[in-house]
């Protein structure tokens, strides 16, 4: 069994128990042990980077220090957390002068960033620690060619120079993992383009217009659902459809489903164990299709 320090972040426990439940269940079933460490904080995502980049790096590094002390690599569910932590980890490993600067700050909290651990997104863990074949072998309920519009969110892929997750213009990992479940990862227009989520709260009109594009493009490609990895993208597209209905008087009923939920369902986890009522756009159509 491979063990990881689980970095849960803020948005998942605050808003999306269905994500946490499905991720914990699926990963445990596939032989990944998730360890909850004390004293983690916010990962220092873009809103904090906007306030002060140096502080953000220090906060991200602080959290990585906790994993270093526990002698564990770190696993993230949220792509936003992945970006903040993986980016800080890479930068501090590659730039000694920056590491020194951050360590001076961390000394105030009794920490030192060493740079001897990895930060991984759970898709990397599925690909590399579990493996596609083993996922396929564990599938009890294949997803019957469900047409899935994959949407990884920007911060799984970009900035690619630091994250090095996949080819930023032609990524394959997420699609491969969707197809391993017996679903189809379909092409749709502007698949890799942002959902606009980070503009919510500052320019809601612009954010909603960008989110609407994503929904329309998936709809026009006849997707059965959009599959997400980031709780913020999920919120933007799921709750976003409620706002699209009031603002644009349009109704798409496009289910938004985290990949971990699809994975859990195909691994045979009972739907009633997954708190699926947290979806604003009901996912009944998808449930019917996969039987």
């Amino acid at each position: 069994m491979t063990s990881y320090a689980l970095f849960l972040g803020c948005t998942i426990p605050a808003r999306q128990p269905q994500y946490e439940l499905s991720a914990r269940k699926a990963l445990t079933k596939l032989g990944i042990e998730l360890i909850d460490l004390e004293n983690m904080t916010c990962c220092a995502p873009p809103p904090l980077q906007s306030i002060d980049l140096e502080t953000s790096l220090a906060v991200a590094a602080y959290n990585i220090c906790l994993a270093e002390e526990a002698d564990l690599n770190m696993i993230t569910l949220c792509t936003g957390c992945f970006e903040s932590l993986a980016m800080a980890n890479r930068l501090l490993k590659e730039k000694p002068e920056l590491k020194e600067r951050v360590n001076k700050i961390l000394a105030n909290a009794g920490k030192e960033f060493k740079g001897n651990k990895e930060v991984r997104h759970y898709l990397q863990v599925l690909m590399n620690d579990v493996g596609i074949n083993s996922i396929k072998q564990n599938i009890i309920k294949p997803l019957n060619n469900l047409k899935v519009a994959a949407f990884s969110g920007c911060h799984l892929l970009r900035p690619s120079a630091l994250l090095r997750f996949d080819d930023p213009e032609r990524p394959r990992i997420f699609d491969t993992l969707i197809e391993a479940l017996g679903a189809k990862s379909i092409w749709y227009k502007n698949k890799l383009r942002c959902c606009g989520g980070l503009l919510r709260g500052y320019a809601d009109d612009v954010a909603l217009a960008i989110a609407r594009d994503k929904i329309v493009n998936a709809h026009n490609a006849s997707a059965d659902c959009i599959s997400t990895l980031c709780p913020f993208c999920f919120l933007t597209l799921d709750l976003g459809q409620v706002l699209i209905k009031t603002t644009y008087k349009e109704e798409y009923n496009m289910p938004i489903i985290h990949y971990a939920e699809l994975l859990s369902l195909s691994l045979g986890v009972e739907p009633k164990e997954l708190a699926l009522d947290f979806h604003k756009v009901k996912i009944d159509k998808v449930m019917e299709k996969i039987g």
Partner: protein
Amino acid sequence: MAEEKPEKPSTVDFAREITSKLGGETITYCYQCGTCASSCPVAKTTDRYNPRQILRLALLGQRGEVLTEDAIWLCASCYNCQERCPQKVEIADVIYALRNIAISEGNIPAIYTEFATGLMSEGRIVPISKFLEKKRADYGLPPLKPTGIEALKKILSATGFDKIMFKKGESQ
């Protein structure tokens, strides 16, 4: 919005100020080709935003305009432009550097004060309701571990973050 600081005297000064900030180092490589604007989802959606234009104004030394107007807050940090810039300008990071300068001068959009408040009181930018915290057991989720708020406060005061956000108080 009223300007806090007098305009810096020359173009070179503002460029130098930006390149000396974390994230801002690459701004001077820009040769204004516009690839960033044509890869930008926000620029495609609204004419309130154009990343090439922000870099141009900054490089022309239009400090007051860049730091006090709406545009720098409209980047969605998607990094699409940064992947494609032929000059390897780290555009999204340059925007962060500009926001950092604006905020340090008290130009703080309300939503950022909200995030910072959550961070400083609970260690999370999205607070968790007591209701959902109690419900965790019903769902079969383990109890949440305490956050490292004490350590975090020490870090925030070491970098001056707490002062940046809450001394000037314009947005509170």
